């Protein structure tokens, strides 16, 4: 097609100024074109510049962010130089935007009707009654049941998925040509994510709106978009039709990212594949290819000359020196290998009929409703469930952060449901937790060494003189340089911080490690490093692990057994492979069906029984 593109972004550069005055070059020459009605995914990990690019398109960069070079042409008009009034006419009316977190993206003090009314009025709707009729129509369009009754409700009276629908209705209110969706389903449960993606697909098809979907999830890309752009270190590294790129990646980063996505079909006990190393430091100038330090194909020239985005076939372009000279796509990744795991030992932790209720007399919420489980040494028990299913409550009760309302907890065969002061100390030493958010769960004012030493001091383990040696040993054990002990958390990457969190949990030599979503805040390419570390620690120390996550594919790979939680109960429990392949509970089947998979997975060996 030779028609001019609807949106034409050329060589866009965006910089931020960090608090210490350094320049952070977040977007480094992104180019992208979008035709009318096209659906394009922009995929990348944290720091790839994907969200910054989206915000820069409408000149909505936060804080010190600014466009330093390049142009954004919408139907030939350059938005980087347009005046504020012209921009406001574009926002919401020509380009609609949907953001990640529906829980905070709506104004809690305004009704849903007012939200829609405001947008419609900002774009020329003069007649109040007509605006109300249009608002009703929009709510119906995005699938809010009984819109007439819900129009005067406030955001907090809607569920997360419904709020995201309302935000989509707002973005579509001005009948835009382009819908920019920045991680629209990341904060939602898998089954709700599925519904929202279906809605976005249907709406773009029926209204002819072009869609730019920004995401880190390759499964979401495969499900929704015709074309995909892969971003790394602020540049586009690959651009092509989704099916082609996901099936036959040309850029080593795309290939690595695809291999790193946990597949539901990969059997239990298989190590996740990752990309070694961590993303580039955007404060540093970039001489060559941003991916060179982590790339298996890197050559000398990759470190000195930045590769251009060049056409490799009629439809696929990639920015890579070796790929540009190779006529064939990269070979598929080696099939995942099952690691040998020693058989689990005796039962170390058991729970019987745990119950927990929150709230007061007027409003009660049963978080746990008779949960029983057993855990052996050297065993990993995976716990999956959607938000509100009670899985985090279960972890807190097992860790004695909250008391249980009913039931029993047995540690090494002894009843520790209501331990005394001394008993509690023992329980806390034997049962440790690893938390979800490696950014919020470390005190930013303490050094890595102090963080790891804190439990040693708290439990009075060792003397002050020999603690530094123990801290160094622990840091080494989790794969960190012991010399890093005097650095503050902010100088570590997300994956490294999670390693510090694990070292802290290991300090008092626990028998049980409760991991509450330990990898869900991490990038896909880094997840494997943490799950691999946990598996190594389990093998070497005989740890019993409780691995709580919402991602069934990860849970299957790391766990021996899986328990599926729903509304405070365990609805299904069993061998990890069996639960994923022959689910008995209807809820488990729904969870499995909602997991988006990027492409047909490579066949795993030697597990011959995989038949998904």
């Amino acid at each position, binding site marked *: 097609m030779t028609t001019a593109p609807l949106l034409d972004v050329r060589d866009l550069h965006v910089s931020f100024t960090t608090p210490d005055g350094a320049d952070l070059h977040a977007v480094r020459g992104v180019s992208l074109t979008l035709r009318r009605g096209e659906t394009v995914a922009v995929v990348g990990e944290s720091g790839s510049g994907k969200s910054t690019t989206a915000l820069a398109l409408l000149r*909505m960069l936060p804080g010190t962010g600014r466009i330093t070079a390049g142009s954004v042409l919408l139907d030939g008009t350059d938005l980087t130089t347009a005046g504020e009034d012209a921009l*406001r*006419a*574009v926002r*919401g009316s020509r380009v*609609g935007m949907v*953001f990640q977190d529906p829980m905070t*993206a709506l*104004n809690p003090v305004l009704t849903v009707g007012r939200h829609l009314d405001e947008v419609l009025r900002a774009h020329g709707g003069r007649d109040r009654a007509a605006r109300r009729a249009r608002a009703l129509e929009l709510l119906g369009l995005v699938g809010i049941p009984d819109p007439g009754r819900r129009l005067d409700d406030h955001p*907090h009276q809607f569920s997360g998925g419904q709020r995201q629908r309302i935000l989509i209705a707002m973005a579509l209110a001005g009948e835009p040509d382009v819908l920019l969706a920045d991680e629209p389903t990341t904060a939602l449960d898998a089954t709700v994510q599925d519904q929202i993606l279906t809605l976005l697909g249907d709406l773009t098809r029926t209204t002819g709106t072009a869609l730019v979907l920004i995401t880190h999830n390759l499964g979401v890309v495969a499900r929704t978009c015709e074309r995909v752009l892969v971003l790394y270190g602020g540049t586009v590294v690959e651009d092509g039709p989704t099916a082609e790129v996901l099936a036959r990646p040309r850029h080593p980063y795309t290939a690595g990212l695809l291999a790193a996505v946990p597949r539901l079909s990969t059997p239990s006990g298989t190590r996740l594949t990752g990309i070694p190393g961590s993303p580039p430091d955007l404060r540093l100038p970039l001489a060559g290819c941003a991916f060179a330090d982590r790339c298996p194909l890197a050559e000398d020239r990759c470190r000195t000359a930045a590769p251009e985005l060049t056409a490799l076939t009629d439809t696929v372009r990639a920015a890579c020196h070796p790929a540009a000279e190779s006529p064939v796509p990269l070979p598929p990744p080696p099939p995942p290998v099952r690691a040998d795991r020693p058989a689990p030992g005796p039962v170390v932790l058991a729970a019987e009929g745990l119950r927990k209720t929150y709230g007061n007399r007027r409003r009660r919420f049963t978080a746990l409703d008779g949960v029983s489980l057993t855990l052996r040494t050297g065993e990993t028990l995976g716990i999956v469930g959607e938000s509100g299913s009670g899985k985090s409550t279960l972890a807190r009760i097992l860790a004695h952060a909250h008391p249980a309302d009913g039931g029993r907890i047995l540690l090494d065969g002894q009843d520790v449901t209501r331990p005394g002061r001394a008993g509690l100390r023992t329980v806390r030493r034997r049962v440790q937790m690893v938390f979800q958010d490696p950014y919020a769960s470390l005190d930013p004012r303490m050094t890595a060494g102090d963080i790891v030493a804190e439990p040693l001091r708290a439990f009075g383990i060792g003397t002050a003189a020999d603690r530094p040696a123990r801290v160094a040993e622990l840091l080494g054990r989790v794969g960190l340089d012991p010399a890093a002990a005097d650095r503050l958390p902010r100088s570590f990457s997300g994956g490294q911080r999670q390693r510090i969190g694990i070292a802290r949990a290991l300090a008092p030599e626990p028998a049980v490690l409760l991991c509450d979503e330990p990898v869900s805040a991490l990038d896909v390419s880094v997840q494997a490093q943490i799950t691999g570390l946990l598996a190594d620690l389990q093998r070497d120390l005989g740890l019993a692990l409780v691995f709580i996550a919402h991602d069934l594919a990860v849970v299957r790979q790391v766990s021996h057994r899986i328990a599926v939680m729903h509304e405070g109960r365990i609805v299904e429990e069993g061998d990890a492979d069996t639960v994923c392949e022959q689910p008995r509970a209807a809820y488990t089947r729904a969870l499995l069906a909602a997991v988006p998979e990027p492409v047909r997975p490579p066949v795993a060996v030697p597990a011959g029984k995989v038949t998904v």
Partner: protein
Amino acid sequence: MRGHLLRRLPSALLVLAAASVLAFGILRLVPGDPAAVLAGPDAGPEVQAAIRDRLGLDEPLPAQYLHWIGGLLTGDLGPSYVIGGETADLIADGLGATVELTLGALLFAVLIGGTLGVLGATARRPWIRGAVRSVTTAALAVPPYVSGVLLVLLFAVLLGVLPAGGRIPLLTAPDLGVQYLLLPALCLALPSAAVLGRYLEDSLRRALAEDHVRTATAAGIAPRRILWRHALPHALPPVVTLLGIQTGHLLGGAVLVEAIFAWPGLGQLAEQALVRRDYPVVQDLLLLLVAVFVLVQLLSDLVHAWLDPRIRWE
């Protein structure tokens, strides 16, 4: 909303009861004796005893307390001991002046603080933000007895446009009254305006960084509307709480400012009554202050509920 208020009522009454005991008790603990003041330095002990007997000061303390509270509840505040006249009349005379001064200062504090806060949070140019910061720092640092003198010097002495002191009630002569009110109200308002400005700036900056403000911007809503409809309602609740506390400060601070500007308000009365150990007047004034404070807190609760529908549904 009404249930909300009813739930707060018991604790408000409790605070008032406790305050009355404290006001009564503290005065009895402070050295000094109204009988001695009334009798004068040359009177003998029998004169003082006669005075004590007349005023009921020889009754046991609980009886005196009940006597006072009983009077309050029936609307009879009784005579003042030392100053002379009915306590109710003394307070009524000063109350109008002080309420006028406090409300004027409150208006100034809200106007100046609001402007500074909004400017500080939304100005794009760094020098404007720096200027706002300097102004609030100065307003906070300068005590009323300095700012008051400076204001008088500038407006009354050098420019000669406003009177240096005294009061003409606003209701009797609005045009003249305003001239007399401006300087004392401004002087009283400055520290409160600075605190309010700082709080609002901080709170507003956080509100402007919220996700739903980004949603509104992306939807093409005008910046002015975003500020008034989306950001300010979120920035206000902590500021309203502070405003409630500041109202108490303004009432207390009025004592000093009334002295500087010869403003015949409750502050002057309180000072006289305290120095001369006029128990009933001081007690009633303290209790009045607490009552106003409790009322303002109730009001700020109501405003909170009005600003945030999530509270209404609790």
